[in-house]
């Protein structure tokens, strides 16, 4: 009876189950935190954690031993983290960030990642300086002090309630506070900083009643002998306390001692010439490192030169100096009340890190024996840029407890490394948190397996045999996971195996495997060892399917004057194809030069692949050919009349189209203006989009319910421009969003769509003859999708001729953009329930499968919308018979709510989503979709289900059994039939 009741209850309760792609079968998700700006170590419940806040607005806790993310909390988009403090005893983490509206947001988190409170500190002045400091004061993190310009704000540590705020208002000598100190009797809060500007600069000190914030006395100003540096706030050292800053020229250290009893310890403001300490010259690059040390400061003078300046002896003198060959990163930690260990890691990029450790006490500084160099063997990370230290106790061989350190190292590419005991424990490719561009690379097809792998059934057999035999290098071979990968990577029969190449904001290029997210290779480009900025990354498709795809990077050095160069990488291995090709200027446009038939034949015959020809348009509109050979020039000459490009000048509101002409120089070509399209003067929020050149289109017509057709306006060179325009003559009408569709070859305006009462920024996506634009309604702010479908007023072909010849002769000719066409457009708009950050249409091998529009939502999820939902011909009112026949749904102004199954990210969130990319696979049903932002999500999408592939749960055993049973039945019945026939003949 009880069982029956339990079963009944079970049946009544809702069932929940995982989708298979949620289990990671078809998708993967990579969560990043970004490059670390602030870090604090703490061990809680036996787990060593490092609490970080990053450049992409994340607050996270990382496992210091493994590098795994313990928890992560994103701040609202647009906030920039400026401060972090930790109170381990109180289990509190404090993070300050500047919000887009100018407020300083202070948030207190528990060490488990739960938000306790947040409070907004208003700017002290409209033009308040951006540096701000947050500090816990008092026992148990009872209070939080926010120093921001001339204002001091005290917040209750447990409730987040603002207790009081005080601003030093003294006209031109307004202070900028940089340090805070609570006196031992907890009655007075002493704040330090500088005040004034120019010749009237002074070191400032104020005493405020801790309870009320009332000034206990006048602000004490100690005039400095020269103007002070206004870029950075003053630094307050630990006991013995000094207020330290630099002069405006950054050649002198300016400091003043401060008493311990709360009274102004005063002394005169002293200066010291930094040039006298070191061979390195002080100057514009000089900075005081904000490392709390007792009576000392660390000053970075120039490249590789860091000095530890002891201020306690009356006259500052250098206790220790690091002259590393490479860049230097500094970290510090407090071990006890007085002992401070400062460590410097320096070394050549991507090789090893030399460590130098200094023990700083109130009495002086002592250089400790340096451990061996920390090797960095994975990837190319660049120079160290920041270091954060954490201490822990450990016993040496003799059982003596020693203070050891673990460190968090941030390298120039943004990667975060966990170090301990001179060992690199782990590394996180946090450069991926700031992707600029994402491209799919298809591996080459292996010659020996291509014929077999063409059919999926053979491909499966081949894979199974390869697995069984353990043969490497076959259809299933892949790199070993190390940077630069060793094994060859070949395409699989389904085309699922691809490389996802990401160019990051730090100019690093990473290639991830699309099937599991592992890093296949990574590269941080450089020129003669100098760091560079990657301006553009172009995928150069292999001219034949057996060769690797190349990546062309155009880079420039960071230092002035810039040096430009083109670097060509093997896209599959990450190896540099050839030495850097120096360029005289930046590159405005680039494209591969089509290979000649003879070159293709030679490649097919097995000739070694030469560097793929490439044409680059430089700043002066001359063309640089790579390689600059007769063959490349001939190939470009043969194709130049059919190659065009366009440049959008957003500031001038102009888009210009260019063609190519010969110049007098040998192998010389130059770009010439073919057309100009001038946008309205008051157009703003410009965006531009073009069709994916690799997009496959199957049907040139749209079949209607009455079995008529609409001829799609198919043009690979369509360019969509989106912008917002406010009609100055009728401002009450509000802004409107315009989408102008141009032909990129001729500059002809194909269509101009206007969405009234809407505003940008306009996000665009194109496919076939469809343009989708996302904007926001005015004044409601509701997100909208506008849909434009372009069709041709084409005449019907001669059906009898088609019937007898088997094809439409007109369709066999290439279509020129210069042919006259008469397109017309159908358009409509829908409200959508969520703001869209980016969107793209799915791509399939032949373009037969209906497309889906993949929307990257502001919420971090990806929504798949069937194209049938986005149809301009959805009828208003009851659909007709033809509409029903076509499957047109009645028009509804609002799309949504959408079924949960359409949210392909399921439980994942891609923070700071900024782009969607889709790529076709060999299977017509399946498209690979990537959503990227601070995180990365990749999945397979089948808009019309897997009609060309067996479902994963297909019962192959039952199929085999059925086939075997049929075979047995055939044999048995054949035997019985023969026997019956023999008997009949004998009768």
């Amino acid at each position, binding site marked *: 009876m009880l069982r029956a009741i339990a079963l009944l209850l079970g049946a009544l309760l809702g069932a929940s189950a995982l989708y298979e792609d949620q289990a990671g079968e078809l998708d993967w998700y990579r969560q990043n935190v970004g490059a670390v700006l602030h870090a604090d170590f703490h061990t809680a419940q036996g787990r060593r954690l490092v609490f970080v806040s990053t450049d992409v607005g994340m607050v996270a806790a990382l496992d210091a031993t493994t590098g795994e993310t313990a928890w992560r909390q994103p701040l609202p988009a647009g906030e920039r983290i400026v401060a972090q403090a930790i109170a381990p005893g109180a289990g509190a983490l404090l993070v300050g960030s500047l919000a887009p509206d100018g407020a300083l947001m202070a948030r207190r988190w528990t060490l488990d990642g739960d938000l306790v409170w947040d409070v907004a500190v208003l700017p002290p002045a409209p033009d308040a300086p951006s540096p701000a400091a947050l500090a816990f004061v008092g026992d148990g993190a009872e209070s939080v002090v926010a120093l921001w310009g001339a204002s001091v704000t005290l917040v209750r540590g447990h409730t987040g309630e603002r207790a009081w705020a005080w601003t030093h208002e003294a006209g031109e000598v307004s202070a900028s506070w940089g340090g805070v100190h609570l006196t031992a009797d907890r009655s007075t809060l002493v704040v330090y900083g500088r005040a004034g500007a120019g010749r009237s600069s002074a070191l400032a000190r104020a005493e405020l009643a801790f309870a009320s914030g009332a000034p206990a006395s006048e602000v004490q100003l100690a005039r400095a002998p020269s103007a002070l540096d206004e870029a950075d706030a003053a630094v307050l050292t630990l006991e013995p306390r000094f207020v330290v800053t630099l002069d405006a020229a950054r050649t002198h250290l300016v400091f003043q001692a401060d008493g311990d009893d709360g009274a102004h310890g005063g002394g005169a403001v002293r200066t010291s010439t930094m040039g006298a300490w070191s061979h390195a010259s002080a100057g514009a690059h000089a900075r005081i490192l904000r490392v709390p040390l007792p009576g000392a400061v660390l000053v970075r003078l120039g490249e590789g030169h860091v000095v530890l300046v002891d201020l306690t002896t009356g006259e500052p003198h250098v206790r220790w100096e690091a002259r590393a060959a490479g860049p230097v990163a500094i970290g510090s930690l407090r071990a006890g009340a007085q002992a401070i260990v400062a460590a410097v890691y320096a070394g050549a990029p991507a090789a090893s890190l030399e460590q130098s450790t200094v023990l700083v006490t109130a009495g002086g500084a002592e250089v400790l024996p340096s451990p061996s160099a920390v090797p960095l063997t994975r990837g190319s990370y660049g120079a160290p840029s920041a270091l954060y230290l954490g201490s822990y106790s450990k016993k040496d061989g003799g059982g003596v407890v020693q203070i050891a350190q673990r460190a968090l190292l941030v390298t120039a590419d943004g990667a975060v490394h966990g170090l301990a005991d001179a060992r690199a424990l782990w590394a996180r490719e946090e450069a991926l948190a700031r992707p600029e561009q994402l491209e799919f690379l298809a591996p080459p097809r292996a010659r020996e397996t291509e014929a077999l792998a063409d059919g999926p059934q053979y491909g499966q057999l081949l894979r199974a045999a390869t697995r069984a035999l353990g043969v490497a290098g076959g259809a299933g071979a892949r790199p070993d996971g190390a940077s630069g990968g060793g094994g060859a990577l070949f395409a699989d029969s389904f085309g699922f195996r691809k490389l996802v190449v990401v160019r990051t904001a730090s100019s690093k290029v990473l290639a991830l495997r699309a099937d599991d997210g592992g890093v296949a290779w990574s590269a941080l480009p450089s020129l003669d060892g100098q760091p560079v900025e990657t*301006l*553009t990354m172009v995928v150069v498709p292999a001219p034949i399917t057996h060769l690797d795809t190349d990546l062309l990077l155009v880079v420039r050095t960071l230092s002035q004057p810039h040096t430009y160069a083109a670097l060509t990488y093997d896209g599959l291995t990450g190896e540099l194809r050839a030495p850097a090709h120096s360029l005289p200027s*930046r*590159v*405005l*446009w*680039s*494209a591969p030069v089509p290979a000649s038939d003879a070159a293709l034949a030679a490649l097919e015959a097995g000739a070694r692949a030469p560097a793929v020809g490439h044409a680059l*348009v430089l700043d002066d509109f001359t063309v640089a050919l790579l390689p600059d050979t007769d063959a490349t020039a001939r190939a470009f000459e043969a194709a130049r009349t*059919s*190659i*065009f*490009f*366009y*440049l*959008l*000048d*957003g*500031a*001038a509101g102009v888009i210009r*189209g260019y063609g190519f002409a010969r110049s007098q120089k040998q192998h010389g070509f130059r770009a010439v203006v073919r057309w100009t399209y001038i946008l309205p003067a008051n157009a703003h929020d410009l965006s*531009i989009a*073009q069709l994916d*050149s690799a997009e496959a*289109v*199957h*049907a*040139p*017509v749209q*079949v*209607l319910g*009455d*079995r*008529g*057709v609409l001829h799609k306006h*198919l*043009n*690979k*060179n369509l*360019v969509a421009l989106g912008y917002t325009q406010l009609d100055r003559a009728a401002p009450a009408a509000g802004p409107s969003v315009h989408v102008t569709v141009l*032909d*990129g*070859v001729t500059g002809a305006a194909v269509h101009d769509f206007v969405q009234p009462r809407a505003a940008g920024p306009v996000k665009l996506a194109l496919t076939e003859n469809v343009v989708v634009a996302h904007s926001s309604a005015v004044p409601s702010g509701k997100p909208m999708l506008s849909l434009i479908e372009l069709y041709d007023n084409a005449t*019907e*072909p001669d*059906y009898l001729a*088609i019937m007898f010849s*088997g*094809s*439409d002769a007109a*369709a*066999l*000719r*290439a*279509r*020129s*953009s210069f042919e006259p066409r008469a397109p017309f457009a159908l358009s409509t708009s829908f409200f959508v329930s969520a703001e869209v950050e980016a969107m793209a249409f799915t791509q399939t091998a032949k373009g037969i499968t209906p497309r889906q529009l993949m929307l990257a939502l502001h919420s971090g999820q990806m929504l798949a919308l069937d194209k049938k939902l986005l149809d301009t011909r959805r009828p208003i009112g009851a659909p007709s018979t033809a509409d029903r026949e076509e499957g047109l749904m009645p028009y509804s102004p609002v799309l949504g709510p959408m079924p949960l199954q359409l949210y392909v990210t399921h439980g994942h969130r891609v923070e700071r989503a900024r782009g969607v990319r889709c790529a076709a696979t060999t299977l017509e049903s399946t498209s690979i979709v990537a959503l990227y932002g601070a995180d990365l999500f990749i999945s397979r999408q089948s808009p019309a289900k897997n009609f060309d592939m067996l479902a994963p749960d297909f019962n192959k055993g039952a199929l085999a059994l059925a086939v075997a049973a049929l075979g047995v039945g055939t044999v048995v019945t054949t035997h019985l039939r023969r026997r019956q026939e023999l008997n009949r003949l004998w009768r």
Partner: protein
Amino acid sequence: MSSRRWDFSLATESNTKGGRAEGPSSSHLPKPPGFVEHAEALAAPTSATLTKAKGDVAKLKVKKAWEVAFSPGPQFAMNAFMLWMSGNQPNIFSIMITSYVMYNPIKAIFGAGQTFARFGDGQTDVTLQKITFVLLNAAVCGFGVLKMSWLGLLPTEPADWIAFYSVRTAAETATGGVPLGQ
């Protein structure tokens, strides 16, 4: 050794020349009562009687031929009812019924000569009946074609020719360069 135990044969010596009849000869059996061996000799018909009889047969043949010629009519009524019942949605039943309705008339048209061969004695002209038969079957077939059209099975609309449409490649390429002025 033969497995045959016994047999009985009606064969006579005259029609079994050397046959296998082994019993006594049947020619010695007496004639049945009332049997006349040469009946035609008892009442020889006159020529007028013969002419009249032939005329009746010809009329009968023509009448029968017209019946055959109009036979598709009643069949069509039944088929039309079936077509109406099957509806205008293309499904397996409607397609099967339409095929059946079209197959039989076509078969009948091609077999028209054989159908009317029994009336072809060289004196009875059934050409008109044949034409009528073919026309009526063609009409039925035409109705089947019309039904196919209603079902959407005939390539009468542009959408039926999309297999022959192909996407034209672009003669030129235009791609975007780096954004300027930003």
